[in-house]
């Protein structure tokens, strides 16, 4: 006996193909031939911010937790890499990996209070305090960070090759960014990603389905910190100057903007958001205030009129970019 239930939606089958995440990077391999050194630098910066967005979106969009520590994860990744390169002459890839791991550990650390039952805005306030605390640390841990004047990162060397040009850095960045996005996509389209979303929508229900919610929140923050820490590490290699003011609240608004304007909870949205918003600070660099003002206004408009962000427009155009939380 089958109950008859009103069915209103037409059937759709299957998840969208994810080959797109490999086709786009392959297509990008040819990009440097069309760019000069400055535009190439901007493209590299976009790649850095793609990771910033992808990482931050895990906490904001997928876990649904307001957090202010993202600029701190970014800074910790950058400082860890810069300190290893500057003081200890560690090989480049190792230093980048250390930046990722430092970011991941910071993410887990910030989120540890959830194990004591701390949630929502209490956790948000802790992340805010942690972020500001880190800026104090950058300035005061002078032995390692050289205080407010910052660290000058030596020229990056990969397996004996000096990465002298922006184009050379581009290929290194493209590989790292592609691998991390693929890994994040794998994670989101599994029981882990579903657990994040279940916690966001209904934590009690998630727990009643056997999800140890506090542990999964720590995991989300740790992965988010890992991805954003990697972004910080690449930033250190790209800009070769790491100083405290690069990780202040002005930086954080760019991060918020990327995620909200791109689309909360959408991997493709983070990427589009990064492309859209990395341009802004570059164009408006010499006009103080306009950058924040513009990003804030974009956020307000999106929150009011396009709650799903630019990703909504993408998804309308093609189902390739629809975020799913399973694979078959």
């Amino acid at each position, binding site marked *: *006996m*089958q*109950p*008859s*239930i*009103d*069915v*209103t*939606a*037409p*059937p*759709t*089958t299957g998840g969208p193909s994810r080959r797109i995440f490999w086709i786009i990077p392959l297509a990008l391999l040819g990009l440097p031939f069309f760019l000069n050194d400055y535009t190439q630098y901007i493209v590299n910066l976009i790649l850095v911010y793609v990771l910033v967005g992808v990482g931050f979106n895990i906490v904001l969009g997928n876990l649904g937790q307001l957090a202010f520590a993202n600029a701190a994860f970014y800074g910790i990744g950058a400082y860890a890499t810069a300190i290893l390169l500057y003081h200890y002459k560690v090989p480049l890839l190792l230093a980048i990996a250390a930046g990722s791991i430092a970011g991941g550990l910071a993410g887990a650390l910030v989120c540890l209070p959830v194990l004591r039952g701390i949630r929502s805005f209490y956790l948000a306030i802790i992340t805010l305090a942690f972020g500001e605390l880190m800026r104090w640390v950058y300035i005061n841990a002078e032995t390692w960070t050289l205080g407010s004047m910052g660290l000058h990162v030596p020229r990056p060397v990969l397996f004996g090759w000096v990465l002298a040009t922006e184009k050379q850095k581009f290929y290194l960045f493209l590989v790292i960014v592609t691998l991390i996005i*693929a*890994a994040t996509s*794998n*994670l989101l*389209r*599994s*029981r*882990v990603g*579903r*657990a994040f*979303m*279940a916690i*966001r*929508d*209904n934590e*009690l*229900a*998630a*727990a*009643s*389905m*056997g*999800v*140890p*919610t506090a542990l999964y929140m720590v*995991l989300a923050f740790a992965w988010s910190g890992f991805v954003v820490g990697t972004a910080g590490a690449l930033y250190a290699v790209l800009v070769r100057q790491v100083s405290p003011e690069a990780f202040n609240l002005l930086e954080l608004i760019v991060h918020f903007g990327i995620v909200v304007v791109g689309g909360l*909870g959408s991997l493709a949205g983070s990427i589009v958001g990064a492309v859209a918003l990395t341009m802004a600070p570059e164009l408006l660099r010499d006009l103080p205030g306009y950058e924040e003002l513009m990003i804030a206004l974009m956020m307000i408009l999106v929150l009011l009129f396009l709650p799903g962000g630019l990703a909504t427009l993408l998804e309308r155009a093609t189902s390739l970019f629809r975020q*799913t*939380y*399973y*694979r*078959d």
Partner: protein
Amino acid sequence: MIDPATASSSIARQLTLTGVSVGFGGLKALTGVSIDVRPGEVVAVIGPNGAGKTTLFNAITGFVPLAAGRITLGEERIDGLYPHDISARGIRRTFQNGGLCGHLTVLENILAGLHSEVRSSIVGTVLGLPNARRAEREAVARARSLLSLLDIGRLEQQQAGTLSGGQQRMVEILRAIATNPPLLLLDEPAVGLAPPVRIQLIEIIRRLAKTQNIGVLLIEHAIELVMGVSDRIVVLNYGEKIADDAPAAIRSNKAVLEAYLGHG
């Protein structure tokens, strides 16, 4: 029928509450409540608003701590465990106000219900290793077969938040039974369902209990549903159990009538 091939083997275990009390501040929400639910048995909990029915569910599933008493599943004591640990031992529930994840699709909601059944490591998942992929594929296949059980496969790509109230109840019940739990707690499963669907719900619940040997504890206000579905009815009033008997006997129980009609 649930396909035996897709259902995990559930071991029949009895739920036993002994002298369970729960307090909020100075208020006692439950006082010395003792209830058994045997495998394959459908037990309804009824009582006026504020009688402590949902608190009882929250106590069993670990969302509120006990002030006194003990809860066992089979031989194992489960009070004091975390909700996810209790869930892992095979107690699944639905929620009075709807427990679906509104931004996940129907399929993803069922998959979330299968969380503890998907055997994949974090590393395997991140790297997309073959056995993690296989575990995912198997879970998706099983989720689809569950959806076909209630003939709602066509809804699989719909966001749960956009479904009608009745559809949401159906999906939530499916999600709760996805792991073939030995014990199912349903908090007002018939809310929002049209009368004909209620009758079907009764049949589904009884079929699950009898064929899968699942113990079912349910809270319900719709009295015709309670009478039709349950083997036994427990009546709560002001946090105390005032009756525990077969449906026919409950109908003529004086204490129950008084609780419902008021003390005058």
